[in-house]
């Protein structure tokens, strides 16, 4: 170990960023996840982020883990410890390390890194594994576990925790426990025998994670769909939404199989493309099953035609859009919030869609389940809009909850008995004056209730019409329904922090960075009021918050400030009040970025006001 001279080595407990640099497809993912899970098991808030290429094997991939005792779990920036296992990316990986930080690398092949302001820790992982394992595959694979073992000694990770994680991971393949433990000890013993430890950065058991779980938003949403009563899923593989459909399948296979017969109480169909995926989900919903599809940006473009049909023919549908970097194929493995407008107004003609925005996996679960009620109640597509950061990375969140007394709300659906009592059924008659009409499922009644679902203009009895007044009346009623929707969708979460504060509007995965930024701004004596938007259409609370602020920063992860546009368009809000604060590199937004932008503009604002007063 070379000790640095010029800069003091970083010293921290439970507060650092560690970045693993690996080769894609080398089996590093499970070792890295084990490291993150070990932090979680020690009760320390942790946020792992997988930064991966759109590639299967060979290209550089990174796994960045922020450990933060205070629970700030947005991306932080900077690297305190780099575990560099990929010579392809050495130069970038080493350059990123903060002065005073640490570099751990595979010193089987020694290097000179030209950094005298960091501590370089050399462990010959390849050599150790070659000496200890015969199987070439194991030799390569166990390097990963070995560096976790080394870190356990360097950072004082509880050994018992890692041991337990290994035995849990290989519960079904117990023969693999022993070699994994051997690899773990290989790295750990090397440190204990050859190096000075611990380093300045350490971890220590904490109690910050009571009632918390660690899960990705996609898996949470897939589980939420199971709880929300989805029986049909049709999907087409696309990063970063694939794991959502897979999450649904995983839990459905576990909890949705008839015990007596072994038959499935669900169906999941991998479609031939996104058009078919949404078409199937629409067909199933039309027939009264709760059905959904999951996709990402390009899929939204492809699904737009069908979305117009579902909107106009008033067919319930749940669509998960796990956003990625756009436009076009864009950055499939990077995160953005750039489909807001594409979703809100998807399809040609006058269309508007219900969107709900979860901000962590707990809300992914809750909103997934709720989306099926909303879709059935409103008889329209409901988008659950998340993104890659929250969808594919494991996030710490509150435990899931479920009320067993809660009954699904299937909306206005007429039974055979209902139809028997009716004189005159019209599919699109606005009987209750809320814009929502009564559906019938095919096969309900021998003589009554059948109608023709169509994307062509239709009258209240679902008959084709080219009468412009009738069509205009339908479009107007759909707006009435949209207003009804604003009373049913999740309300914003508002936090008022002082008089004359500026407002901050945000949504989705920006949440952790915002909450950290709020505290940092407070230290600079800038108070911000927060509004986390959780749905579109916007409800009254949203307009009230906006009315109560003369300047509001709309923080979002896209170039065009799309949520701001949506608010201005829908509420006639002056552009001067809503100030764009955008980040769109594809990396998750950071608190430091938000703080610098808001404080700079707030200082300008205050000097401007003071000048006016004088």
């Amino acid at each position, binding site marked *: 170990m070379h000790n640095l001279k010029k800069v003091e080595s970083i010293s921290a407990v439970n507060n650092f960023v560690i970045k693993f640099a690996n080769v894609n497809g080398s089996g590093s993912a499970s070792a890295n996840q084990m490291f993150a899970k070990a932090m979680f098991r020690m009760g320390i808030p942790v946020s792992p982020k997988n930064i991966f290429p759109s590639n299967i094997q060979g290209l550089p991939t990174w796994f960045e883990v922020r450990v933060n005792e205070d629970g700030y779990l947005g991306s932080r920036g900077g690297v305190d410890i780099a575990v560099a296992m990929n010579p392809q990316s050495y130069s970038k990986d080493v350059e990123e390390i903060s002065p005073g930080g640490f570099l751990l690398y595979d010193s089987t092949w020694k290097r000179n890194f030209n950094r005298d302001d960091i501590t370089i820790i050399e462990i010959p992982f390849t050599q150790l594994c070659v000496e200890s394992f015969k199987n070439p595959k194991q030799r390569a694979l166990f390097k990963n576990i070995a560096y976790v073992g080394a870190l356990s000694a360097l950072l004082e990770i509880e050994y018992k925790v890692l041991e337990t994680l290994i035995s849990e991971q290989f519960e079904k393949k117990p023969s693999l426990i022993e070699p994994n433990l051997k690899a773990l000890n290989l790295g750990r013993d090397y440190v204990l025998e050859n190096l000075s430890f611990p380093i300045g950065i350490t971890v220590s058991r904490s109690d910050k994670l009571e009632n918390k779980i660690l899960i990705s938003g996609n898996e949470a949403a897939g589980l939420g769909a199971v709880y929300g009563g989805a029986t049909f899923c049709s999907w087409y593989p696309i990063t970063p939404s694939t794991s959502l459909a897979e999450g649904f399948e995983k839990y459905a296979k576990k909890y949705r199989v008839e015990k007596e017969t072994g038959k*499935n109480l669900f169906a999941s169909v991998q479609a031939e493309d996104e058009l*078919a995926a949404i078409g199937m989900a*629409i*067909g*199933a*919903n*039309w027939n009264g099953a709760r059905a959904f599809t999951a996709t990402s940006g390009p899929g939204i473009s492809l699904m737009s*035609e069908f979305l117009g049909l579902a909107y106009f023919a008033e067919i319930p549908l749940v669509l998960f859009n796990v956003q990625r970097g756009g436009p076009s194929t864009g950055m499939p493995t990077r995160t953005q919030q750039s489909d807001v407008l594409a979703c809100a107004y998807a399809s040609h003609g006058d269309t508007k869609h219900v969107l709900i925005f979860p901000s962590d996996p707990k809300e992914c679960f809750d909103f997934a389940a709720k989306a099926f009620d909303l879709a059935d109640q409103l008889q329209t597509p409901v988008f659950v809009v998340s993104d890659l950061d929250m969808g594919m990375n494991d996030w710490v969140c509150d435990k899931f909850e479920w009320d067993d007394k809660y009954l699904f709300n299937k909306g206005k659906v007429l039974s055979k008995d209902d139809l028997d009592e009716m004189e005159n059924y019209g599919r699109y008659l606005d009987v209750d004056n809320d814009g929502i009409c009564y559906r019938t499922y095919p096969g309900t009644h021998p003589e009554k209730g059948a109608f023709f679902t169509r994307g062509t203009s239709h009258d209240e009895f679902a008959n084709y019409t080219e009468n412009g007044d009738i069509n205009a009346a339908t479009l107007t009623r759909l707006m009435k329904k949209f207003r009804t929707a604003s009373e049913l969708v999740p309300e914003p979460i508002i936090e008022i922090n002082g008089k004359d504060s500026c407002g901050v509007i945000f949504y989705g995965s920006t949440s952790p960075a915002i909450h950290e930024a709020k505290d940092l701004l407070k230290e600079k004596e800038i108070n911000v009021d927060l509004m986390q938007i959780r749905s579109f259409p916007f409800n009254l609370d949203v307009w009230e918050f906006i009315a109560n602020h003369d300047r509001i920063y709309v923080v979002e992860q896209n170039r065009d400030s799309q949520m701001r546009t949506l608010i201005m368009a829908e509420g006639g809000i002056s552009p001067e009040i809503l100030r764009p604060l955008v980040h769109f590199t594809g990396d998750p937004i950071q608190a430091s970025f938000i703080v610098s932008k808001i404080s700079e503009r707030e200082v300008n604002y205050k000097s401007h006001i003071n000048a006016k007063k004088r």
Partner: protein
Amino acid sequence: MTFIKPLNHHPKLEKNNLGLTRRDYEGAVSSLCAGCGHDSISASIIESCFNLNIESYKVAKLSGIGCSSKAPAYFLNQSHGFNSVHGRMPSVATGANCANRDLLYLGVSGDGDSASIGIGQFIHAIRRQVNMVYIIENNGTYGLTKGQFSATNDLDSKNKYGDDNLFKPIDLATMAIQLGATYVARSFSGDREQLIPLIMGAMQHKGFALLDIISPCVTFNNHAASTKSYDYIREHNEAVGKTDFVPLGEEIKTSYDEGTSVEVNLHDGSKLSLEKTDKNFDPCDAGKSLNFMREKEKEGKVLTGLLYADSTAKDLIETLNMTETPLNQLDQDLICPGSKILDLINKDLS
């Protein structure tokens, strides 16, 4: 032309086992051109449902876009209908079928809908073996946009304006056999005697049943240089034989010479009996059938009748190992795992 159908039925109209008349299976008045082949197909569908004692409300009619896709409005008024988007009926039918396995799915499409914009969905519905009747009302032209060529139009055929068709046709029936459809027939809208038993057989078949029905477009593709005109088809039509539908429990009455007749078992126990015109043809052997079709094509014939049938294949519902109860009828307590399971899941995640 009449626009309103009288509500009262003649008291002496023939009734089926359900006590229904053919009128009970009708739909709205057609807005297609007078003489359109599609209307004859609608009439044959009505006749088939009447003969099979089908309860209309247990049928779901689905279509895409085009003249053909308007047709479901003109039969089975008591059935729910779904006029979807262009070429996308197969996906809607697939989802609907998964949601409620108990209905009869009747898809009506055209050659533009299925051979061009929707060919991908058409192919994959067959590949998945969706349990449905898929009727293509094939007229070789885009009628609703006034007579452009469709992908099933023959190479030497001209359009109404005298333009040559530059591309070879896609033969959807051949393609369907190659893709593994388990019931494939071709027929002609003008030949009700052949068409009705074929529709009835398709309705009783389990799995994907394709009916490629040549249905002349009287307005845009019924001229002398067309190969999809009434005259051309009447002249070149060669049936593989005479098909009879034999209801469950009834005996086959006619006896044929050995080697000339084939029986096809249907899902409900009924049968199709085929009196073949050629010993080399075998509708139970996909390879032989395809060869025979190719030979007849070379001879310039349009081969019609039951081309291929396999009553043993699994449908999508079976492949997905789905429960007997339609998914849309499962109670909440069966599909929501509840709070106790969620506690276990939480434990696994912490």
